[in-house]
């Protein structure tokens, strides 16, 4: 799975997510990616999220919208992302990862799985990583 979220200079947020699905999936199986609120969600009043991971688990907790709910309640992008992922793991045993932004340009790349390739570009600096806790930076 791949995805992206962004905030532009006018404060508009957007998300995009795309996937080939699960290895050897049943023909016709559709996961979280194309389901609004699960594979992604964007609302200028809150923020935007794109997700990856256990598709069926993500759908059961509507992970993207759940994270934005936590942000509506005052949580930061990072805390809301962690709360959503933790709830999914404890409630339905699913692992995954997300990228999240709010309209002010705060961003997070968080995952409960062991790995997720991610990168963020802001203020002419590129941040990226793969393993938990890993973050490299370079000038754009």
């Amino acid at each position, binding site marked *: *799975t*791949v*995805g*992206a*979220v*962004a905030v*532009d*200079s006018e*404060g508009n*947020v*957007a*998300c*995009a*997510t*795309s*996937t*080939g*699905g*699960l*290895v*050897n999936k049943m*023909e*016709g*199986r*559709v*996961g*979280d*990616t*194309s*389901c*609004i609120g699960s594979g*992604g969600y*964007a609302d*200028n*009043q809150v923020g*935007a999220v794109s997700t*990856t*991971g*256990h598709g069926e688990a993500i759908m059961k907790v509507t992970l993207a919208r759940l994270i934005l709910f936590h942000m509506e309640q005052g949580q930061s992008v990072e805390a809301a992302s962690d709360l959503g992922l933790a709830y999914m793991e404890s409630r339905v045993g699913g*692992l*995954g990862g997300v*990228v999240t*932004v709010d*309209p002010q*340009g705060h*961003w*997070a*790349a968080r995952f409960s*799985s062991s*790995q*997720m*390739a*991610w*990168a*963020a*570009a802001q*203020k002419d600096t*590129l941040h990226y990583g*793969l393993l938990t806790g890993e973050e490299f930076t370079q000038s*754009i």
Partner: protein
Amino acid sequence: MFPVVVVHGGSDMVPKERSENSKLGVCSAARAGYAILRAGGSSMDAVVEAVSQLENNPYFNAGCGSVLNIRGEVEMDAIVMDGKTLGSGAVSAVRNIANPIQLARLVMDKTSHVCLTAKGANQFARSMGVAEVPPESLITEYARMRWTKNLAPGTDTGESQMGKMG
């Protein structure tokens, strides 16, 4: 407020020999999305460009490089959402399309629907003039190897999927 784009690949285990290309891929996609933002482009244009680049990168499970279903075929899903209007568009189980994310955006921009699936999605693609590509062009050797491995005698396909990420 500073414009920002954040991109991700899958949360599955990335084999060591593929990890460097995965990192390079997300960095390149983020740069492409950021270039659009820096030029005054919209967040929607930025995320579609970033994801299109990742779909074209065979190191990721989307577009070219997608995993195979039980029949050894590629079926892809994609979604876009615009935070300004809450407009969204999606496609599911679509085949033979190089960039499903761009088709999802067309669903958002050109129809009153939220999601089109399978043959209907492909029919919509044709009506929009989106070129279909040969199925083999989306299949990598790595995807075929994983598919074959999961077909091995004694492999419980359902069980083998349980620990894998989409």
